């Protein structure tokens, strides 16, 4: 095992130019996992499966997030932060930081469903 590690370290040094590329890839994986972890609590209500054209039709009160642009999701979540009203989402949104909201909006904004 130790020998292997030495070998790969040597190779990693030889491939020094490619390392930053890999590091950013790892960061990307971590960021994507972070976003998916935050979104885990959303999809129990805001599923991708209900909404337009589905068996549940259009008579839904909980907004489907499919195909919503990032800016719209971010603005809505931030509006909940400021809101004095006590709807379910104002109570939930207040538990998230601005960074978390930005990460969530970026992630959910990519949810394109045909």
């Amino acid at each position, binding site marked *: 095992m130790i020998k292997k590690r030495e070998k790969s370290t040597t190779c990693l040094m030889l*491939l020094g130019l490619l*390392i930053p590329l890999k590091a950013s890839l790892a960061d990307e994986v971590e960021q994507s996992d972070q976003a998916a*972890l935050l979104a885990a609590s959303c999809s*129990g209500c805001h599923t991708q*499966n*209900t909404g337009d054209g589905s068996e549940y039709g259009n008579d839904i*009160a909980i907004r489907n997030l499919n195909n919503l642009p990032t800016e719209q999701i971010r603005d809505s979540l931030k509006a909940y932060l400021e809101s004095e009203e006590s709807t379910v989402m104002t*109570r939930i949104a207040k*538990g*998230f930081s601005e960074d978390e909201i930005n990460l969530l909006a970026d992630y959910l904004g990519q949810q394109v469903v045909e």
Partner: protein
Amino acid sequence: MLRKSDNLEIKKNKNVTTDRTGPKMSGLSRRNFLAAGGTALGATFSPPSVFAQSRARVVVIGGGFGGATFARFLRKADPTINVTLIEPNSEYTACPFSNLVLGGERNLSQQRFNYKGLENAGITVVPDSVIHVDAEGKTVRTANGIQLEYDRLLMAPGIDFIWNRIEGYDEDATKVMPHAWKAGSQTKQIISQLTDMDDGGLVVISAPANPFRCPPGPYERASLIAHYLKSNKPKSKIIILDAKDSFSKQPLFQQAWKSIYGDMIEWVGFSDGGAVVSVNAKEKSLSTDFDQFSASVANIIPPQKAGEIAHQAGVTDASGWCPIDPVSFESLIHPNIHIIGDASIANAMPKSAFSANAQAKVCAIQVARMLRGEDPLPTTLVNTCFSLIAPDYAISVAGVYQPKDKHLAEVEGAGGVSPKDATTEVRNLEARYANDWFKAITSEVYG
């Protein structure tokens, strides 16, 4: 390219899971190297036999909201993982919304969901019960004698009941005094007792002390039984005998009971002698320290503990529930076993289908990361519980949770219940939210 290196990582880790620090380090450097260096270079340092080894194996115990969600999202997080779900029932009968069945507003068949969606998602569903978990040897054995090895085990066994904690209330007594705290035949029994009851009869619901599955459940149940009685047997009465002094969303429930059902529902808290200490199934009677009640319908919701298999596996503590790491949901007693849903000690997070579903998705991502040799990432979780007081009138409680000091703690300044003096429109809207939630969660998990 990335996919291939991920596979290698999984295979590698399988052989070295006993040492968590060393192999993880070397695993990561190899993964970095492979991803950076390309297939040809990677092969130099990977014995060919690695490719012949099997994929990472994850076994899931229980096909309820927790287990079924976990299985689906683990496949989503990494389709190369071999996921086997073991569940004895061919159909799952959901508890949320089953109080509407008692209220005569829904059929039990609408509560049933099968596992075809899971099979289509590439999950191996085994209709069997796990009777033995060997945490050291990392194997499970089923009632039909199947033995399965796992790299990581997910336990979502839900709840079991503590018989005779209320004297005289055992499995036999449930035939006369149903709990209906697992939906199905027990639910049907309450319906037939309600149907047989004369107008003017007494319904008694015995509610347990905390913690238990679905904290607002007994009070939603009383509400929807009242909804049925109001139009069918309006002279009847419901008494809730409670082993605690306060309950979830209490002011909202009591306000709505008064306005919708008048004096039909009476609640007796612990301090007023509400705790049921014994029952007599033959006479359908319940005794508290002060009183005896003879009921036409007696619904005993008994004290609870983690599902039996969790006790056998040795992942429960003295409380009867399973202590877990609040980030990875890994057992604090046995490594490589994760516990989610009602059976786990999730601290501030209540035992609900919503919690189990959210925990399952989080845990799936963490398990996929850990199988790749990466650390689990702390995150934020949500629970929301809607309670129907009438079919078109609902209230809600929401909470946001984060790992803090080895606990899942409620985030301050967030969460809370519906406003007390909201308009009927707001209550109607929350009932629509409740309906949409049930459709959404069941389609996400079983669709």
